[in-house]
């Protein structure tokens, strides 16, 4: 049931830029570089100030690259009804976000979609989220 509220948030807020709690979005991520990747979760760090999860993504050339994605603060997510085991290693996910400003293989990961179509909103903001430009 908790996940249901979680998915509803995703429906309402999909397409939104994830707002960060402890720093501005633009301090670390580039709004002009949206990313959408599919891969297998390898590691989850359910820690402050933002959760991070890592995903092995296979490129067109067959090479696998491990990408890191930042979400909201654990407390914000848990109070919203998003438990820490929402994303687990081994899951196949589609992640949408914006690439890190430094060009590294890191990005914000505001929206995660599972193969069965369920979506999870992992960003830090609750109800004051601007629409993506």
């Amino acid at each position, binding site marked *: 049931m908790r996940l249901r509220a979680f998915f509803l948030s995703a429906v309402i807020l999909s397409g939104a*830029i994830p*707002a*960060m*709690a*402890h*720093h*501005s*979005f*633009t*301090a*670390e991520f580039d709004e002009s570089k949206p990313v959408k990747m599919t891969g297998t979760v390898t*590691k989850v*760090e359910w*820690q*402050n*100030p*933002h959760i*991070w999860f*890592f995903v092995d993504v296979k490129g067109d050339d067959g090479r696998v690259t*491990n990408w*890191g994605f*930042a979400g909201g*603060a*654990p*407390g*914000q997510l*848990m*109070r919203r009804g998003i438990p820490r085991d929402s994303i687990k290693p081994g899951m196949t996910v589609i992640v949408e976000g914006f690439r*890190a*400003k*430094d060009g*590294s293989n*890191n990005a914000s990961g505001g929206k995660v979609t599972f193969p069965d179509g369920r979506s999870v909103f992992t960003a*830090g*903001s*609750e109800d*004051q*989220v*601007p629409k993506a430009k």
Partner: protein
Amino acid sequence: MRKLFASVNVKDQALERPVKRAKLARILWLSLPVCGVFLAALALGSLGWTPENVYGQSSAAAGKEIPRTADGKPDFNGIYEWPKALSGEMCKCSATIFDKTRFPPLKPGGEPFFEPRTGDPRHDEPRDFCMPAGFPAGMLSANALQISQTKNYMVIVHEFQRMTRIIPLDGRPHREGLEPTYYGDSVGHWEGDTLVVDTTEFKRWQLDDYFYTNPKEYRMHSDAFHTIERMRWKDPTTVAYQITIDDPKIFTTSWSQDFEMKAKPDWDKAGLYEYVCEENNRCPGGKCQGQ
């Protein structure tokens, strides 16, 4: 009735009807004000003039329905949603920000309200390096906060950065000789059912999170910053929360903004979650660390 009248002589019976009519008239006369008040209440109610919007607080808040301590003071003990603005611009962030339409003119020749950008991320956004939000920005962050209140102290703990404010309520003055601080030196006192918290001794720091929306407008308060917060129960589940900003080095006059905090007793079971920013701050200054 017949038996009763049987004991009354003819003369008395003649007097009975005028006495009854007089009693009836007196009852009707005395009930007129009650009827009037009832009809007036109906009329005002139909116009939307309820005690709540006429006096600015609900009848519940004016009575005994708000939480109160054993000594009769309003009881703010509990867990709350962060203060939300009643009006104004939304932030491109998850925090509440101040409404720029409330800002008075800037003081000519005063300190800059917007901190210039230098390109150094440690200067341009210290929060990205886990530096404190300070007050009032930390108070307005989009996390839960918890209030613990005794006769002599109120302690406000905000989940964001575990901001902790210890506010004496015993009438003591501000401490003297403090170095300027991020969260200031607070003292509180009661004005009726309103808790008034006066805070001074700030260092120059961010006013709010507006820089999330426009990095070029990083609003700063000065070291002359002085705030007055007023808290009162608006209704049994809502705390009216007002912040008055007095910053004579930046603004020509003081100004205020009203917020509301919703009590969230259902959040009490989980309580506040830990928030140690340094634990896993992976991309400080836009430079992400290795995996």
